[in-house]
């Protein structure tokens, strides 16, 4: 017999970010078809994402890598203008009030690119160490840039982005010795939340370590092509 209890319960067990993750899967499938390596570059504002992306087009071209860039920014197209000048095919994604790129933005942007024969798609996320870490955009890997002026404790403060990244770039190493930054402590902090990711020391401005980064990308592209 039914009793007089007027309360009921329903188990749902659903990922709240399901809609985003479904779109990310569609993007991942399309990248698999075109055998394009998609990298999602994340960092704080001012850590050197755009400067790095400006620096690499000639080196990627020398390595015979075809590539395009999607650059995220809340409002401006400053970054796209800079990257365009550096000789790369670039699409600006303006996220408006959103502090990160989600899979929907990428799906729309890649519909404007010819993916056939494209080896590498570089996504420059919105400058932020928090939300971009949480969103799957269909990328093969996230890459986090931490720059020396930000301080050696950031991996402890923003663990998720470091945990989720397959590669860590320590940028502005030309400033080491000028700022109170303990590189050994920093590496220890990174490895504390991700013992697997390689760490490459670079200077986007001066060019140190960039060839090692290109080497990493080349290797990763080859892995993708073999799959």
């Amino acid at each position, binding site marked *: 017999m039914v009793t007089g209890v*007027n*309360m*009921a*319960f*329903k188990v749902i*067990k659903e*990922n*709240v*970010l399901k809609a985003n993750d479904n779109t990310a899967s569609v993007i991942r499938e399309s990248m698999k078809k075109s055998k394009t390596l998609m990298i999602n570059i994340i960092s704080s504002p001012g850590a050197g994402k755009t400067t790095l992306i400006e620096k690499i087009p000639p080196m990627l071209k020398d390595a015979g890598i075809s590539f395009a860039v999607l650059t995220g920014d809340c409002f401006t197209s400053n970054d796209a203008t800079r990257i365009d000048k550096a000789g790369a095919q670039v699409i600006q994604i303006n996220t408006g009030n959103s502090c990160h790129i989600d899979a929907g933005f990428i799906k729309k942007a890649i519909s404007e690119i010819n993916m056939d024969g494209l080896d590498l798609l570089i996504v420059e996320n919105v400058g932020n160490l928090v939300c971009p870490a949480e969103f799957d955009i269909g990328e093969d890997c996230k890459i986090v840039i931490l720059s020396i002026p930000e301080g050696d404790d950031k991996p402890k403060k923003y663990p998720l982005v470091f945990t989720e990244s397959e590669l860590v770039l320590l940028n502005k190493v030309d400033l080491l010795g000028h700022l109170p930054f303990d590189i050994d402590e920093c590496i220890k902090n990174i490895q504390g939340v991700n013992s697997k990711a390689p760490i490459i020391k670079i200077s986007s401005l001066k060019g140190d370590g960039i060839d090692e980064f290109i080497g990493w990308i080349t290797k990763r592209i080859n892995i993708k092509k073999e799959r």
Partner: protein
Amino acid sequence: MITKNLVSLLEDAVRPNDVGQVKTVYLEVGRLRYLVPEIVTSCFAQIEKSDKLKQAKLDLKVLPVKLRCSDCGKESSTDENNFICSFCLSKDVDIVSGKEFILKSIEW
């Protein structure tokens, strides 16, 4: 945007006729997620939703970070952002829990 996703899942869940006025929405959030319960709660209060959801309160449970060690195979949990196996101190660990964001259930 996260709250919008949540409400859209909830609207699907409350559509059947046998579901009444929802009192509590149970959520599980991994510690590594940057979700501030107070902010999610205030967004949820303000966002447009159907009558069945208007009185609903959020019950947000934070799940700890759980690690599985590749060396000794044991699982341990940690409150620190230094992920090492608490049994054998190996750094070769996989995060098996701590990144969730799950709409667990509703009560009406």
